């Protein structure tokens, strides 16, 4: 045998040892801790949001001493890098190797669609605190998935209605990030706004990798009554600055979805954001006692005000804990745990009262907020509440589901 052959044998042996070592099965005791698998983007472009998600989750688990119904809670966190492929592989790891009892987390809508069939095949109770794509609980619901967050058009339906009833804006231009979340948010707004007698007169779509907003904002029709914007993260910061620089601020009032002025970006904004009217199922400035306590505790832990990502994961952790309590800690009975997750109904989450509809999406308050400066800091002051808003707004679910998902071209822009 040549040295090379020997070396090859050694390499083969090493690889096999590596694989075998990977596969050391973990103990699967009934009385062991309750394992929650949590997917979060801890590296990559979305890592700031991922940290908010994790901090929110840990904050609640620490509040209850990481124990529910007499059993320890073990939180197993996996980094998704903000990449759907990685998220799916990590979900497999959490379920196949760690044998988690509940799978949770995830940021991107595509991750939600990717985990759907996996959760169904594995029969693993799963919650989505952040992923908001409409169809996850509309045209493609999954039995094993419960959404504890929101869906994209839930809050923008409400804003469309609010604008019709409370303002004189009847011709509105939309400027939004060019991807599914932007399409769905704009679609929801357009539907209720136009049904109430308004007109969307222009839709400007901004690619996700845009660095310069000038070419897009210079297109915006100056005779619009208002502009409706949908952005998040870095894009939201750039958009706000450019909206002021392009001379639109002060001339055309600005409306937006929740993420554009979410507390994940609001502290980095300046006066350019003042006066923006937005819509979301949460605001860090909500005045109910649970939120006041939560916001203070989160600030102590994370050194910043809670974003919706933080609140939704805090609520998600509490949601899971309530379901575990309801089955007296017997999480091994997956059907029972799933039923309990779908039955959780509480009045005192930081975001307000929440319950689950038949499709697995929360029915919850939607708040109309305005960016104001209070005590030197920007905040989303809530000035109007739509109570118990369903993902189908006021439509009949069956009728609603007959129309297609909101996309770039649906609803069509008749007045453009």
């Amino acid at each position: 045998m040549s040295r090379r052959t020997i070396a090859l044998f050694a390499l083969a042996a090493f690889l096999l040892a590596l694989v075998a070592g990977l596969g050391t099965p973990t103990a699967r005791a009934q009385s062991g801790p309750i394992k929650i698998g949590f997917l979060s983007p801890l590296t990559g472009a979305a890592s700031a949001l991922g940290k908010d998600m994790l901090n929110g989750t840990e904050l609640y688990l620490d509040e209850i001493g990481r124990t529910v119904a007499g059993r320890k809670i073990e939180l197993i966190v996996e980094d998704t890098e903000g990449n759907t492929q990685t998220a799916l592989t990590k979900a497999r790891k959490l379920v196949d190797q760690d044998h988690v009892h509940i799978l949770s987390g995830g940021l991107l809508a595509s991750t939600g669609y990717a985990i759907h069939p996996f959760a169904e095949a594995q029969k693993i109770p799963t919650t989505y605190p952040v992923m908001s794509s409409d169809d996850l609980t509309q045209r493609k619901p999954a039995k094993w998935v419960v959404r504890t967050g929101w869906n994209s058009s839930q809050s923008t339906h409400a804003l469309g209605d609010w604008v019709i009833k409370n303002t004189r804006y009847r011709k509105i231009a939309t400027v939004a990030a060019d991807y599914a979340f932007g399409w769905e948010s704009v679609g929801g707004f357009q539907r209720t706004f136009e049904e109430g007698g308004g007109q969307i007169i222009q839709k400007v779509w901004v690619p996700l990798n845009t660095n310069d907003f000038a070419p897009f904002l210079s297109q915006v029709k100056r005779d619009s009554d208002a502009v409706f914007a949908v952005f998040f993260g870095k894009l939201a910061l750039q958009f706000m600055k450019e909206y002021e620089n392009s001379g639109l601020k002060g001339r055309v009032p600005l409306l937006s979805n929740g993420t554009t002025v979410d507390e994940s970006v609001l502290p980095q904004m300046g006066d350019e954001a003042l006066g923006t009217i937005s819509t979301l199922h949460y605001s860090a400035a909500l005045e109910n006692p649970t939120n006041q306590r939560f916001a203070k505790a989160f600030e102590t832990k994370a050194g910043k005000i809670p974003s919706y990502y933080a609140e939704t994961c805090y609520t998600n952790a509490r949601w899971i804990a309530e379901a575990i309590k309801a089955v007296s800690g017997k999480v091994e009975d997956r059907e029972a745990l799933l039923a309990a997750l779908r039955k959780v109904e509480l009045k005192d989450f930081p975001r307000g009262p929440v319950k689950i509809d038949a499709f697995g999406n929360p029915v919850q308050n939607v708040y109309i907020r305005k960016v104001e400066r209070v005590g030197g800091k920007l905040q989303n002051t809530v000035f109007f509440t739509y109570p118990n808003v369903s993902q189908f707004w006021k439509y009949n679910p069956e009728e609603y589901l007959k129309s297609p998902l909101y996309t770039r071209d649906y609803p069509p822009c008749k007045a453009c």
Partner: protein
Amino acid sequence: MMRRPGVLVGVAVVVVAAAAVAPWLPSYPLTLLTQAMIVAILAMSLDVLLGFTGLPSLGHAAYFGVAAYAVAILTTERQSGFVLCLIAGVVFAAVAAALFGLIAIRATGTYFLMITLALGMVVWGLAFRWVSLTKGDNGISGVPRPDLGLPWSFWGPLPFFYLSLVCALVALALLALIVASPFGMSLKGIRESESRMRILGYNVWLHKYLAFVIAGTFAGFSGVLWAYYNGFVSPVDVQLVTSVEALLMVALGGQGTLLGPAVGAALIVFLKNFVSVYTKRWLLILGAVYIGVILFAPRGLAGAFHRRSS
């Protein structure tokens, strides 16, 4: 490399050992191994271009993705069977490569890199924007595992692993035959000196073009399996990062060796999914491995191994 008996024996040993151990592995390492097999096909296909012909492509995920989308659309919209999907996926990838090759092969070096990058972005743009067909960035979910009419179901991780293993071996064998053929020899000749080959009377353009199409076709083969493996296809599969990762697998494993890129692919799959469990800083480790390879083994792991043993 494939002609050396030592290597052949080594491959056989690894394959037999992996196949024998597989039934005793828990399902997670098994799915990682499956993933490694599928990605290895992609890396090997790119090696035909990069390693044997000297054409660094930054758009190789395009053909991978075209095939994956073909499978996803056919299975979810038309409930097509495995054979039809396999053929359609590979053919679509080949056609895409044939079209793109016409444009890309005109350039060399950095220009080739830029053109393939741009063509890759075109496919990504289609996947992202052609919502009625591709569902945009939400992706297409619910791709079932293939049904070959065999007594066992490919929904289980073990049968699907064996399927991927067989496919990877078939791809390896075919690619090895191609690169060892006179055609493959002329590709190497082009890599070493294009002008000399031209003077010798070889149709350099045609050789490069065929290499491009062959590489795209095998990338498509890998993409077909990938769609079945994940049950999900989204623009992530065709984005630049996927192309770059394939390129890094080839560089890490050793270009122009076929087996090297396969090992590189397996290594990256394991680093990504294994090391990251233990540390959030796993990207640092991956980066250090790349830098280490470039500094100390510029010809990749296979190159370093080859030099030491000879």
